[in-house]
């Protein structure tokens, strides 16, 4: 069964067609990258998957369960949160400034529970360890952490529900290069260890290549091209994808246009 199945997805904001007839699959444990220019509809797709935005039409299924309509009641909401989680670009805005990493993660564990206090504590240690936070960092408040450390906290908290799908919306974009590499390695390890599926939204084609099996190129809400990541990036079929590819600075880049 696919982790995510999206069919004929549309979203209108008033007359503005922000997402137009988008469809894709992410197999269990797979990793899809969505690339496209600013305003192309990437975040809107992510928000519909999480349930922060309601599709105008089309269907979204995660682990075979439809979620194109708002959840009916807290049980369904909880199930959805257990299945799919999201990490945003700037964890600063999504983390409670008063809360240490440990208490933020513990809160999620308690909410999605069924664990005894001892089990919870063990799982908490495991998560903190998995994302590479030190003990000191795990008890610090967000403002005393660096951007990379905050992003580790956000990832640990997202993993706490035990999701099968993780949506990463520009989650590594604002990080320093050396920190971005650490987080990319961490995300690759987590996927290898847990079989989690990723939906990675990024404007950085190299980041997508590093982390994704398949890629979808979006422009003005429409799918320009989608397929195997290496195939699409090395042999783009569409002019727009070629332009995106050619805009990546590499050695010997000809900047004359």
């Amino acid at each position: 069964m696919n982790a995510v199945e999206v069919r004929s997805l549309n979203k209108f904001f008033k007359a503005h067609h922000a997402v137009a007839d988008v469809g894709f699959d992410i197999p269990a444990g797979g990793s899809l990258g969505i690339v496209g220019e600013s305003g192309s509809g990437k975040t809107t797709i992510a928000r519909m998957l999480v349930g922060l935005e309601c599709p105008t039409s089309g269907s979204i299924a995660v682990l075979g369960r439809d979620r194109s309509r708002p959840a009916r009641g807290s049980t369904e909401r909880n199930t959805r949160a257990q299945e799919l989680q999201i990490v945003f670009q700037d964890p600063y805005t999504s983390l409670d400034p008063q809360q240490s990493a440990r208490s933020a993660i513990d809160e999620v564990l308690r909410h999605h529970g069924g664990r005894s206090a001892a089990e919870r504590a063990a799982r908490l240690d495991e998560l903190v360890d998995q994302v590479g936070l030190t003990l000191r960092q795990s008890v610090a408040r967000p403002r005393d952490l660096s951007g990379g450390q905050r992003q580790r906290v956000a990832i640990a908290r997202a993993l706490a529900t035990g999701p099968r799908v993780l949506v990463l919306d520009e989650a590594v974009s604002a990080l320093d290069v050396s920190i971005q590499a650490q987080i990319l390695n961490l995300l690759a390890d987590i996927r290898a260890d847990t079989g989690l599926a990723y939906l990675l939204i990024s404007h950085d084609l190299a980041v997508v290549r590093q982390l994704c099996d398949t890629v979808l190129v979006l422009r003005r809400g429409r799918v320009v091209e989608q397929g195997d990541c290496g195939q699409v990036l090395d042999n783009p079929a569409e002019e727009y994808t070629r332009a995106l590819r050619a805009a990546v600075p590499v050695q010997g880049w000809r900047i004359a246009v």
Partner: protein
Amino acid sequence: MTTVPLLELSSLTVDFATEDGGSRTLLADLDLTLAPGEALGLVGESGSGKSMTVRAITRLLPPAASAGGAIRFEGRDVTTMDAAALRAYRDGGVGLVFQDPRAHINPTRRIGAFLTEALRHNRGLGKREALARAEAVLAEVGIDEPARRLRQYPHEVSGGMLQRVMIASVLLAEPRLILADEPTTALDVTIQREVVAILDRMRRERGMGMVFITHDLDLALAVCGRVAVMYAGRIVEIRSARSLHERAAHPYTLGLLGSRPAIDARAQRLTAIPGRPVSAFEAGGGCAFAPRCAFATPTCENEPPPLVPFDGGLVRCARVEEIHAARTNTWTSKEAAE
């Protein structure tokens, strides 16, 4: 005969006075020379001091910060310029392009008013002539319907377009030096390419020098002839862009190169640098990179290494010869094994 450098920084330092009466070093031992018409890249992670360098060059440091050492523009000492000389220097000598154009433009005034202000004030041009000049330069930076744009407000145009307006405003002042501080970081890649191409073309056509600041090493290599890598308020390596990929010698530069995923192949694993980048005042007494460096020895932690010539560039690493020899050896043995 040697020509006078366009810009010369020698032993530039910037210190910041803290509220408790102490002082924090933000930049140290910065030596840099830029020839007329040359493009130099300044690359580093956040807090390495890139923007502080620009602020020191333009004497736009925050009030609590003070600069030491020498800054010379076309041979003239910038640090001792009087108000009139400083105004002339900022109006016509250097032009600044920032990361976020919206933060540097008055949102309540039309683009035309913004672009012609300096022309009318400093050059005494009439309104009609100034507008004609502005329109011509907008066309030069690839903006279509320039006459219509002059009547628009900043919020009516996209970020990429506004950055071109900023570049146009700099070009109108006809500076000899452009300081571009992350000018494309906020833009889409395709727009970045266009904006960078415009900067590059204008620089060549007008023989302007450029200091191009970015955290993206690959972008700097594509745009500049020479690249300086900064870490914790110091230059740790400087060499020609052409030689940097193959001949990077400083462990930090090597780390940066290994950290970036490649567009044409997936790496098994990125060779991430452990820890996080630090600012100058957070660094210990020795090599600032030592806590993250795989080659660090106790000596590294105690003795600050000088910036010394190595393999056609300048490198600030006490062990550069050994590290280079070890790397070259592994290559040779790899080749032998194949």
